[in-house]
């Protein structure tokens, strides 16, 4: 009979742990800090667009940075990357439905033509 796997949450090794008690995999403490630092740097870059003229790249850059931050939090902090696919399906279904419904709603009111 196998025993519960020893927790591999050793900071600075692989950066990924197999939490024996919770079931879902995730990063180590150091891995989470790394993700948070990246998120903070992206936020700083976002704020810089308010002061620095990025020209035509302003809007696409902001949207891309927003999406990257969103996905990083969902994937690593909310563990969707390491969890069962059904959880991803349930969440992204709601998200895609919301985006679809409200893009249609805004299009109907000619929002994107302004």
């Amino acid at each position, binding site marked *: *009979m*196998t*025993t*519960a796997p020893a*927790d591999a*949450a050793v900071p600075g090794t692989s950066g990924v*742990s197999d*939490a*024996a*008690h*919770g*079931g*879902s995999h*995730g990063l*180590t*403490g150091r891995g*989470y*800090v790394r*993700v*948070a630092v990246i*998120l*903070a740097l992206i*936020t700083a870059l*976002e*704020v810089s*667009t*308010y002061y620095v003229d990025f020209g035509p790249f302003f*809007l696409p850059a*902001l*949207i891309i*940075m*927003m999406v990257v*931050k*969103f996905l990083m*939090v*969902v994937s*690593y*902090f*909310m563990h969707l990357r390491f969890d*069962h696919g*059904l*959880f991803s399906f*349930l*969440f*992204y*279904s*709601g*998200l895609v*439905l*919301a*985006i679809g*419904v*409200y893009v249609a*709603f*805004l299009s109907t*009111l000619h*929002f994107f033509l302004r």
Partner: protein
Amino acid sequence: MAEAALHGAAHGAAHPHTSTGLSNVKLGMWVFLGSECLLFGGLISTYMLYRGRVSQGPTPAQVFDIPFTSVSSFVLLMSSLTMVLAVSAAKLGDDRRTNLWLTVTALLGATFVGGQVYEFTAFYNEGLGFGTSLFSSSFYTLTGFHGVHVTVGIIMLMSLVGIFRRSRVPGSKSETVEMVGLYWHFVDIVWIVIFTLIYLIPV
């Protein structure tokens, strides 16, 4: 036999005896968060539609304080880090660190809400009431709803700390922390969207 029972208990949270083999609580939470996307999607869309509709009172560019809101955003972002550290500690069965990180998360959340109250007060003093314009109504409704979500999260975090101190947690303790964590991270990702679309993109 006893070893098998212990092994099963250790993995109870990971492989519950449900028809899907997954925790129904966790499934329910993800369905709830998916539905919350529709709620905030509606509020954000309404704001986007009305943000330029200022018949009287100040415009967004006149009232928004980007440096202040950037600091608030950073605080909320860091609260996601402390929350995930609390979840990690709970999974390892480290009650002391779990309580510590939950408390720090609640404090960071309270700082964010305090900043929002300060911001609303400053806007009001500059002549931006709830009914001043379509912009102000949609702005206060959107950010107010988000603030209420953060406040509910803080209440849940502090309740968890209190319940853990009395050791009255039914079921898996780590799963309970994880569920509150999912809610907290969701509130954070909603703010990521709000900060970019509402504050950083000019009208």
